[in-house]
C-alpha cells in the first residue's frame, strides 16, 4: 500500500517537473502534443502530417493505461491527444478529464464503421474516436496442436496438461470461463460467476502458469502449446514465430477498443482535431493498420489493405466468431465478487 502511495507521489512529482518542461514551450505555437502507446503508430504518418499541415508534432509514449492516467490526472500535463483503452476511457470521462471533440472538424469520421460508434461508454459520440480494436483469443503452436482450435474447451483438454498459459488478470481469465459456459462476461449473477470460478479451479492442474506480458516470449520460444492473449500480442508473436496461430473461440470473447481522445485543457485543440481527421483518412488508416497489425475500425481503410491480411482471421475475425463477443462493462461494486473469485482461483491448491 505504501508502495502504491509512494508511486503516486513520485509520479505526481515527475508530472509536475515534466509539465513545467512541456508548458514552457507550448504557448500558442503551431504545435501538437501526442501521448500514445509505445510502437503504436507508423511514424511516417507523423512526418506526413507535419509536412501537410506545418504543425510540429511532439510525441511521447506510455506503456500502460495506468501510467497514462496517472500522468494526465493532475490536469497540468498539456497533451492534446491521448489514446486510452475502453475501460480507462470510461474512467477518465467519468472523472471529467476529457474535452468534447468537435466532430465538424473531422469530416473523415464518416469512414469509421457504425459498429465502432456510439459505444456503451460514449453513447452520444462526444469524446471517443476508435483508433484500433481487437479480441482476446487463443494463441496456439501449430506444431503442438494439430486439431482445429475453435472453442475455449481446448483449454480444459487434459491432453495439453502443463502446456497451457492463462492470462493473469481477473476479468480476462474469468471472461474465458464465463464465455465457455455460455454466460455473459459482464455477468452480475453470482451463481454464474461461481460456476466459472470452479471451472478455472478445475482447470488449474492443466495450466503451466498464469502470466501477463511474458506470455509472448513463452509462446514465441515454444514453451507451451497455447495461451490466452490479446489479438495484438498474437499478431506480434506470430510475426516472431511462424508456427503460431490465433483463434477466436466460437463461444465468443471480449472485444476491446483503443480510442483517440482530447484531454481536458488541451492547448492545441484545433490541431488535435486536424490530427484525428488525418488519422481517419482511409489511406492513412490503412497504412497505419498495416504497420501496427491491429484491426482498424475504418471501413474506408479496410477496402485498401491487402486481401490476405483482410482474410487473416487473426486480423479480422469472422462475423460468426464476433457474434457472441462482448465488450467489458464497468460492473460497479460487483467487481469485488470478480476479484474474490479470481483470488480464490489463484489460492486454490492444485
Amino acid at each position, binding site marked *: *500500500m*505504501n*508502495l*502504491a502511495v509512494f508511486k503516486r507521489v513520485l509520479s505526481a512529482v515527475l508530472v509536475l517537473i515534466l509539465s513545467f518542461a512541456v508548458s514552457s514551450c507550448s504557448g500558442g505555437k503551431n504545435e501538437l502534443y501526442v501521448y500514445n502507446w509505445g510502437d503504436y503508430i507508423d511514424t511516417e504518418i507523423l512526418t506526413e502530417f507535419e509536412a501537410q499541415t506545418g504543425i510540429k508534432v511532439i510525441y511521447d509514449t506510455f506503456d500502460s493505461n495506468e501510467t497514462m492516467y496517472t500522468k494526465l490526472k493532475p490536469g497540468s500535463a498539456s497533451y492534446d491527444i491521448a489514446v486510452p483503452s475502453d475501460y480507462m476511457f470510461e474512467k477518465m470521462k467519468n472523472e471529467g478529464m476529457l474535452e468534447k471533440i468537435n466532430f465538424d472538424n473531422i469530416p473523415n469520421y464518416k469512414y469509421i464503421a457504425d459498429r465502432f460508434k456510439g459505444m456503451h461508454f460514449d453513447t452520444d459520440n462526444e469524446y471517443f474516436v476508435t483508433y484500433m480494436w481487437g479480441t482476446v483469443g487463443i494463441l496456439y503452436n501449430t506444431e503442438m496442436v494439430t486439431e482445429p482450435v475453435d472453442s475455449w474447451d481446448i483449454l480444459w483438454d487434459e491432453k495439453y496438461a*502443463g502446456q497451457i498459459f492463462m492470462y*493473469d*488478470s*481477473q476479468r480476462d481469465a474469468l471472461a474465458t470461463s464465463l464465455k465457455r459456459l455460455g454466460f455473459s462476461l459482464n455477468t452480475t449473477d453470482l451463481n454464474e460467476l461461481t460456476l466459472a470460478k470452479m471451472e478455472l479451479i478445475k482447470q*488449474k492442474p492443466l*495450466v*503451466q*502458469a*498464469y*502470466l501477463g506480458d511474458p506470455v509472448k516470449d513463452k509462446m514465441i*520460444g*515454444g*514453451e*507451451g502449446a497455447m495461451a490466452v492473449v490479446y489479438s495484438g500480442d498474437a499478431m506480434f508473436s506470430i510475426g516472431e514465430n511462424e508456427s503460431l496461430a490465433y483463434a477466436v473461440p466460437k463461444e465468443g470473447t471480449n472485444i476491446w477498443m483503443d480510442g483517440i481522445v482530447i484531454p481536458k485543457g488541451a492547448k492545441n485543440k484545433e490541431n488535435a482535431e486536424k490530427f484525428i481527421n488525418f488519422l481517419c483518412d482511409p489511406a492513412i488508416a490503412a497504412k497505419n493498420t498495416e504497420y501496427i497489425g491491429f484491426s482498424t475500425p475504418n471501413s474506408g481503410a479496410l477496402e485498401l489493405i491487402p486481401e490476405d491480411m483482410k482474410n487473416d482471421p487473426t486480423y479480422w475475425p469472422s462475423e460468426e466468431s464476433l457474434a457472441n463477443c462482448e465488450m467489458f462493462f464497468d460492473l460497479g461494486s460487483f467487481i*469485488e465478487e*470478480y*476479484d*474474490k473469485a*479470481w*483470488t*480464490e482461483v*489463484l*489460492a*486454490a*491448491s*492444485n
Partner: protein
Amino acid sequence: MRSKTPAYPYIVWMAIFIIIPVILVFYYAFTKTESGGMVFTLENFARAFEPIYLGVMWRSIRLAFFCTVICLVLGYPVAYIVAQRKTGTRDIILFLIIVPMWMNFLLRTYAWLTILEQNGIINSVLASAGLPKLNLLYNEGAVILGMVYNFLPFMILPIHTILKKTDLSLVEAAQDLGANGINVFLRVVFPLSVPGVISGITMVFMPAVTAFIISNLLGGKQVVLIGNLIEDQFLNVYNWHFGSALSVILMIIIVITIGIFSVAERDEGGAVL
C-alpha cells in the same frame, strides 16, 4: 535535554516510514468501504481464515521452512570452510559470494527462467542426451530453488562471522582433552556458532515467508504464497482491506517466529556470553 535533540530526525523517520504505514495497515485491516465511508469490521479476518487462504499461508510457511533448512545445510559448510581460510583467500571467497547480490534481483531470478524452461538450458542438455524433458518451472521446487539461490548469502554471512571469531584456544583445548575433528566440531565449534545459525535462520526465513516476486516469476501464479495474495489485493484487485488483513496475519507469523528464535537464542546465549 541536549542528548535528546539528535534523536528527533530518527523519530520522524520512524514515524513516517514505520509507524504510520503500520497504523494504516491495521486501519484498513479492520475496516471495509461501505457507501463511501469506512466501517469497522472483522470480515477481512474471517475471510483470511477460510480454508483456502489458510492453505496459502501453510504453503508459505512450508516453503520458507524448506528453503531455510536447505540454506542451512548448504550454507553452514560453506561458512565453515571459508572461516578456515587465510584472510586473503577468505576475502576473495566472501567477495564471490556477495557479488551476485550486487546484480539486480529480478535479473538474477529471470536468469533462472532461461535455465529451467522447457526449452531451457537444463532440458536442452537432457534432450541432447536423449533423456526426457523435465517440468522444472512453475512448481514449488522452482520457487524453493529461487529462494535458496537468493537468500543463501544471508545464511552464510552471519554464520561465517561467528565462526571466524571462534576462539582457537577452545578448539585446541578440546583437542587437548582428546576430541578428534568430529568431536571438536560437534561439541565445541557448532554449539558456539548457534547464535550465528539462529540469526541466519531468521534472516532467511523472514524474506522467504514474505516472498512474492520469486514465486511470481518462478511459480507463474501456480505457486501462490501469502505475499502474492497481498500483492494482488493491492495492485490488481484493489481490495486494500483484505490485503491489509493478510499483511497483519503475516506480521503476526513473523513476530511469532522471531519470538521463538530469540527465546532459543537467549537460552543459548546465556551460556555463550
